């Protein structure tokens, strides 16, 4: 390890130094020749290539076992691997699953270990790229013609080779699908209070007040343990008072970006008003995500702020009972925003079957069966080439509403990254404790933003 090399660097004599210099020069010359040769060969291959790699050229003709490290609780990726094996029986999968928090902490060690997975669900990519743990997917981008994908779809998956700044630079990951967040509502409870889908934030405020007056919990939200679920409504409010692009500047660490802005302060103060008015379940600081879902599905609350990954679940278990709307704008007709993120997967720099895994990623984005699985099971936009249609879903289903909402957010340029993903530690170390304190009335909105910005700066320094 280089750390050890630093600590135990041997003393080098003058003669040895000259000899080393000569050897190094020879190595550089040879490496240069080899590199030029390889580059030329690659260029020729790229130029000569007229079509995407075939299955045989990517995965070979012999049986191959791909190793996957996936997030537990997401059946879409499991269904996709199963369908892939059905189409290509020579490919088997060896899959390990863990909760996202475990994946976040394990990612560097797993990817840098002696047996890295071929395909892995990823948290933020910057630090992994900085440590050279992820494969640069640009060659596959060229070979498979991923330039036909909308550029914005892949923007969050690009960073510089040093991991600084997200949005430009080589491609280091792909989205299995592309999810967005908004507000799910219980149709029966909505009917009880005569709720109509709100068009402005003021209308949403009125709905919350009405539900509260009717004895219905207006919003059920998870915010317990290590999960700062209050970030969902907070970021939606931030986009209302500010803009999606301002939030993206911060999430993607663009120069001068700060979370501590007057607009974000207004948003946090608005959230504080909701908390003080008792619009959230009073035990939010002790409620974890599964409990929130279970309470909402049991009809204990009118709304939840959540993502379209639950659409398939609602269609299966509460058909016709759950509606979805994008967070209403501050003023009527204003742009609507949504946290929109690829379900990010990357290939380890040391993956044994990188080519075959890239073939799988291309298959996921383009194959009709895969796209159908992504929509029906994942409940999300399958992404892929702009020319490919989104598989049809049952009209009136929750999935149909989230897909339609995605089109509105895209039209309004309202897609934004998640503020919890700005860096690897910001969610656990800064956002979660601070929004929990805000909920308990132990911290002011200004203090929340200042603390988070301080942690953001510390992590970047």
């Amino acid at each position, binding site marked *: 390890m280089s750390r050890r090399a630093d*600590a135990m660097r041997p003393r080098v004599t003058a003669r040895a130094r000259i000899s080393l210099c000569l050897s190094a020069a020879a190595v550089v010359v040879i490496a240069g020749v080899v590199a030029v040769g390889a580059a030329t060969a690659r260029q020729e291959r790229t130029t000569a290539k007229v079509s995407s790699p075939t299955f045989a050229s990517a995965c070979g003709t012999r049986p191959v076992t791909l190793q996957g490290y996936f997030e537990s609780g997401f059946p879409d990726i499991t269904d996709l691997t199963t369908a892939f094996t059905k189409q290509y029986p020579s490919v088997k999968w060896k899959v390990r699953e863990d909760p996202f928090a475990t994946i976040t902490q394990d990612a*560097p060690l797993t990817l840098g270990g002696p047996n890295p997975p071929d395909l892995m669900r990823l948290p933020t990519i910057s630090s992994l790229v900085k440590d050279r743990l992820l494969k640069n997917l640009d060659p596959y981008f060229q070979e498979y013609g991923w330039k036909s994908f909308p550029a914005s779809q892949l923007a969050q998956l690009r960073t510089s080779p040093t991991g600084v700044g997200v949005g430009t630079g080589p491609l280091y990951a792909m989205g299995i699908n592309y999810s967005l967040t908004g507000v799910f509502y219980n149709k029966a409870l909505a009917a009880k209070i005569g709720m109509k889908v709100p068009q402005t934030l003021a209308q949403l405020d009125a709905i919350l007040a009405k539900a509260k007056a009717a004895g219905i919990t207006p919003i059920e939200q998870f915010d317990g*343990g290590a999960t700062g679920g209050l970030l969902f409504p907070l970021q939606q409010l931030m986009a209302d008072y500010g803009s999606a692009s301002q939030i993206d500047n911060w999430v993607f660490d663009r120069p001068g970006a700060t979370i501590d802005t007057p607009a974000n302060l207004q948003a946090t103060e608005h959230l504080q008003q909701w908390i003080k008015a008792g619009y959230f379940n009073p035990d939010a600081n002790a409620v974890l995500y599964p409990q929130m879902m279970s309470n909402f599905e049991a009809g204990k609350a009118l709304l939840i702020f959540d993502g379209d990954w639950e659409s398939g679940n609602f269609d299966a278990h509460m058909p016709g009972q759950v509606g979805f709307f994008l967070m209403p704008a501050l003023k009527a007709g204003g742009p609507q925003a949504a946290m929109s993120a690829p379900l990010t997967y990357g290939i380890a720099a040391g993956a044994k079957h990188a080519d075959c895994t890239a073939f799988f990623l291309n298959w996921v984005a383009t194959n009709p069966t895969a796209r159908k699985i992504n929509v029906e099971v994942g409940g999300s936009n399958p992404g892929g080439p702009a020319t490919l249609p989104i598989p049809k879903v049952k009209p009136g289903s929750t999935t149909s509403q989230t897909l339609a909402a995605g089109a509105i957010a895209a039209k309004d340029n309202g897609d934004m990254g998640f503020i919890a993903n700005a860096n690897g530690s910001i969610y656990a170390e800064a956002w979660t*404790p601070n929004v929990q304190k805000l909920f308990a009335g132990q911290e002011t909105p200004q203090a929340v933003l200042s603390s988070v910005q301080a942690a953001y700066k510390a992590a970047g320094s």
Partner: protein
Amino acid sequence: MSHTTMTSRRDHRAGRLAMGSRALVPRARAARLHGWLFLSPALAAYGLFVLWPLITSLRYSLYSWDGVTAARWVGLDNYRTVFSDSALLSVLGHAFQLIIYFSLIPVTLGLIVAAVMRRVVVGRLGTVARTVLFLPQVVPLVAAGIAWNWVLSSNGAVNQILSAIGLGGITRAWLGDFTYALPAVGVIGVWVLLGFCTVLLLVGMSKIDPVLYEAAQLDGAGPIKEFLNITLPSLRQEIGVCVTVTVIAALSAFDIVFIATSGGPGDATMVPGLEIYQLAFYNREVGLASALAVVLMLLVLVCVLPIQWFVNRGDVRA
């Protein structure tokens, strides 16, 4: 003639004894070698899983390292951060608060429960009671943490009981409340460690000579005087073990806190074990995490060594 015979016999015996003692030396050596041979697997495991990680942690604590790329020597900077960062110091404060719940209450309650069980709960009922009390030691702490999460949730068993007895006004989501989250975690600790302390103390009580109690009764001592003058002094060793084990459990708590609250809400239940984990695996500050781990180890020693000294001092006098 007879003198000669006697002398030669004595010499012969002496010669045999001398030969025997010479033979004992290699035999003792062989015995010692066998001893080390038997000890070596345990020593190897101890060295590999305890000493080596300890040395490695000490070394890491002197570097700034993200766990993957090259490390940078920073000397004692990480230790300076541990002692100057107020957030890290408050985390150490939580560990000391946990001593009340993990150590003081289980040992005190354990003494009372064991004394009552020794006098009142005997026979098959006693066996059942001991088994039930010891059960939390057998249940995996992760499972226990999840179960307690439900029990202490807003509509969990605790709040249901409180509501049923007319105390609905004080119900709350205990693990999500800034004031009560740490005591609630402490209650889980009491549940886990009470059985251990009770069973250990019961075993200690069974070794006390019954004659002492008979003598005390003849002198007119009641149950409380018996307890204070006979039981308590006789259990010094067992109490020493209980306090040592539970104080270590309090200071190095991780699993219960991780499952029950993950350190939240806010930082209300953040403890050193969890902070070390977060620093190493979320913040990727392996050096700082190692420094905190070393400080925690020293803290445990500072707390436990005086207890051991106090307990063993009595033995030397005796």
